[in-house]
């Protein structure tokens, strides 16, 4: 295991970081929209989000990625594997994040929502300005957890051809006949990234403002 090989892995881990961070943020956006649909009081929207969440939580991510990867071209959409990977990871994490956010939305103090309504906020304004910020603050630890899960799950996008950390490790293992040190190094890099994310998450958690009490 030379420094040259290790630096190639480090370089590839930037792609892992890129795919994961974009997917987490896009997934968070979709999750907020899903939560809004769930709470809109519209039965059809409620049912659709329910099926969406159940499907993306019930099917292995690998199968979802392969499906999206093969389905998009049939639908006439030929995207680079980076875009396909981000779409797949975002949809999957959105379903999990929507479930996490649900607890946060349930914990928003009723009084705050009522006072917003009294002040003339529309339901959408209340959702955007009152409910969502509080729900996000409440579920922040779950978001950090999900970020770590997605960082690990991003290894699956290697199966649809994106050259991130795992795919690079596979390529190097095949060309050098040294799978043991190379996959072990990849594992160490994932571990280091996750430890840093967990540490940053704890620091951010302490720095964030407190929650309104009931």
């Amino acid at each position, binding site marked *: 295991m030379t420094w040259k090989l290790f630096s190639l892995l480090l370089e590839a881990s930037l792609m892992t970081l890129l795919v994961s961070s974009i997917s987490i943020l896009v997934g968070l956006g979709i999750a907020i929209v899903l939560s809004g649909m769930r709470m809109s009081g519209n039965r059809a929207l409620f049912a659709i989000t329910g099926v969406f969440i159940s499907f993306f939580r019930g099917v*292995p991510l690998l199968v979802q990625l392969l*499906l999206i990867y*093969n389905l998009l071209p049939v639908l006439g959409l030929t995207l680079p594997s980076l875009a396909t990977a981000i779409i797949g990871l975002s949809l999957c994490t959105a379903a999990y994040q929507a479930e996490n956010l649900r607890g946060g939305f349930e914990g928003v103090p009723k009084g705050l929502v009522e006072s917003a309504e009294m002040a003339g906020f529309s339901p959408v304004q209340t959702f955007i300005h009152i409910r969502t910020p509080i729900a996000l603050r409440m579920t922040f630890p779950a978001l950090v957890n999900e970020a770590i899960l997605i960082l690990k799950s991003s290894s699956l996008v290697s199966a649809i051809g994106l050259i991130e950390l795992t795919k690079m490790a596979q390529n190097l293992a095949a060309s050098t006949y040294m799978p043991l040190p190379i996959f072990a190094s990849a594992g160490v890099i994932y571990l280091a990234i996750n430890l840093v994310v967990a540490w940053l998450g704890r620091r951010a958690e302490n720095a964030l403002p407190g929650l309104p009490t009931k």
Partner: protein
Amino acid sequence: MSFDFAVILAQGPKILSGIVVTILIWVGGNVAAAVLGFLIATLRRFGGRGVDVLLQVPIEVIRGTPFLVQIFLLYFGGPYIGLRLDPITAGFIGISVYGAAYYAEIFRAGYRSVPVGHVEAAECVGFSRNQIIRFVLLPEMALLVLPPSINMAIILLKETALLSLITVPEMTMTVSAIGSQQYAFVEALVVLALVYWALVEVANWLGRIAERKLSKLSA
């Protein structure tokens, strides 16, 4: 664009064999993971501070790295240290070890939830350590441990899909192979997704029944 599901469904027996392999590895791996996780948690609970700290390391390593990298390391790296495994054995070991790290944490939380006074009371009336585990700790933590265990079992079911990448003939591998033979990849993957979805929903449903039964027992 037209989809032809008939060519996939015509391969029923092959699909079924994939489903059987998935379920066998899942059930076997899950049981092994739970038992191993319980043993690790028990060692950490009773083995003293040194053992506790020492066992924390492999648990953190397994929980902090992707399962895919772990099975690649085991299956492709293993032969270089004399560990030559066939895909199914490697997959089974992979699922068991990966799951054990998570189950160990679940049971550790369970052990910690039992009030110290209950254990001390059992010691006072002369219970042996095994009796304390069997008659005090396990029953008291069962209700707390069950929901995360069900969750973990479902996660492990989905993780078995990755074993297709080390050529275990489970359902992701068999169904996508049918898809490429028949040149009907999307159809194959849709069928595959639906089967997983159904399996997960059934597992969820069984889990809810188990939770209800257990909470009635302990009520």
